[in-house]
């Protein structure tokens, strides 16, 4: 009764294409000369031109912003994966008082709006003189990333067979040894998928970066909105940066396609 039809395939393709049009338009605008970009009716076919990319990267200093974003994302992924995998394993494999509350607390940590925490952290960081440092941004990104990683990885650790771990324990391995040498390798695909999501979250984050970064650590999402020329908003350059920013994300997303849904729902939907 689940009729698979070519008509449905065509219709679904049309729907997907419709959702895809803005993405195509972004890339096209990035590749247009100023003249083509201002032409009405909108030009769908034109001679591509790379000057927007060159201008954004070299004249507007986006190489630096790309570097800053990459440093913060890399730091975040290390902190979140180490803390998150330990916590997920502890919550999945052991029963102790307060376990349920901790699960909920981690969910809450993931759900709290970034701006709500960014405001008090801004005042605290100013007092402690750590504002506009990589460490501060990494710590705050790692806060929701650790909570996310804990929820996400818990499902992957649950799929590691207990029998293998128990036989290693009988053979005299320590709990930490079992975690490092059995659970981690067996949950490796989950760790990769989680890492990809953490990188994307950190890479795309705007609220923390807006409030907590400045000249030394400004990341891509904050910088892209400030792209202006004397003639007004530099749309060509903005679209070029958007395209550049999206490339690694798209690549990563394809890499973990199997676990995308799981990641977007912090492991709730498999």
């Amino acid at each position, binding site marked *: 009764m689940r009729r698979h039809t070519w008509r449905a395939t065509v219709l679904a393709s049309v729907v997907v294409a419709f959702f895809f049009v*803005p993405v195509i338009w972004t890339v096209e605008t990035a590749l247009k000369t100023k003249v083509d970009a201002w032409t009405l009716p909108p030009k769908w076919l034109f001679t591509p031109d790379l000057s927007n990319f060159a201008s954004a990267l070299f004249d507007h200093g986006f190489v630096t912003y790309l570097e800053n974003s990459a440093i913060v994302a890399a730091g975040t992924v290390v902190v979140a994966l180490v803390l998150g995998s330990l916590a997920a394993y502890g919550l999945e494999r052991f029963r102790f008082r307060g376990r349920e509350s901790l699960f909920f607390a981690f969910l809450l940590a993931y759900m709290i709006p970034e701006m709500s925490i960014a405001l008090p952290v801004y005042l605290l960081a100013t007092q402690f003189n750590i504002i506009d440092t990589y460490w501060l941004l990494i710590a705050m990104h790692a806060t929701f990333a650790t909570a996310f990683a804990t929820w996400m990885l818990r499902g992957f650790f649950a799929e590691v067979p207990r029998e293998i771990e128990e036989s290693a324990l009988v053979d005299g391995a320590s709990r930490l040894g079992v975690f490092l040498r059995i659970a981690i390798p067996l949950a490796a695909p989950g760790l990769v998928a989680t890492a990809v999501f953490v990188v994307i979250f950190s890479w795309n984050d705007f609220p923390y970066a807006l409030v907590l970064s400045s000249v030394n650590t400004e990341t891509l999402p904050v910088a892209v909105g400030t792209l202006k020329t004397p003639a007004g908003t530099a749309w060509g350059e903005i679209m070029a940066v958007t395209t550049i920013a999206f490339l690694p994300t798209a690549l990563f997303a394809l890499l973990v396609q199997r676990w995308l849904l799981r990641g977007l729902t912090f492991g709730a939907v498999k």
Partner: protein
Amino acid sequence: MGFPDSLPAARSSRRLAAHHTALTGVAFVAPATVFLLVTLAYPVVYLLFHSLFQENFARPELSSQFVFLGNYVSLLGDPRFWNSVRVTVIFVAFAVSIELAIGLGVALLLQRVDRGRRILVALLLIPSMMMPIAVGLMWRYMFDDGYGMVAYYLKALHVLGPGGLIVEPLLVRPITALAALIVVDVWEWTPFMALILFAGLESLPDEPFEAAVVDGASPWQQFRFITLPLLRRAVAVAVLIRIADAMRVLDIVFSMTNGGPGTSTETVQLYSYNLGFGAFNTGLAFAQVTLVLIATLVVSRFIYRAIARQQEPLA
């Protein structure tokens, strides 16, 4: 066979072992917990405390005055606060229900696709992977009245412009500006909704449908009386996650309208930012954040329960 379990010595050693494993579990969870206590719990305690004072956000070193719940009273009497709540509620209600309706349609459609499903799913997820701030900029460009692609085609169809359904430029009138934000959220997140519901559809058992066909049920009856009831847990999880996300919308608002025209699209999160970095009123900002945290707590509780229920096997 060893000693019977009831022997006191065996029982106490097992209890000792259980105690030991519990401690190991705590040790595994401790690093992340301590980290979150520093980066999250500490700022929360700090903001709760300072919501009781009158302070300058830009000059926190200046003298502060204890006003107890005064900030909360001023906040609840501030029309701009209620405006931001109203804007956010409208945004969430429209965005999430449109996403659910279209998402369900797309999910049912995907189920009937015979070829290239993987590619379609991969392409569908692209909007939700894009940098939200860039998504907002991209749509602002397309909505622009002078050179925007969307505005151009709406004018060509006589929807926009003099004599059309919408007379003034899209981001200039409060109602169309808010509608534009909803359109962007729908674009970003309908695919996500579709894919959760699609996964839910794929996991439904075949038997009820086979029985219904035997009993001569129409496709609509099958959908209404079998698909929908069986899908309700997946729907609950998807809708709740979307509500929580839409409640904290900031990036696309910041880059598309920045709350304007006036404060007609100022959402709760943008209001938080403006209280801090616009009005420099620490106490008022933190009182508002406290209310936001309470709302987050309530919604998270619902999500937690929905996830727990979804992971039970279907009855």
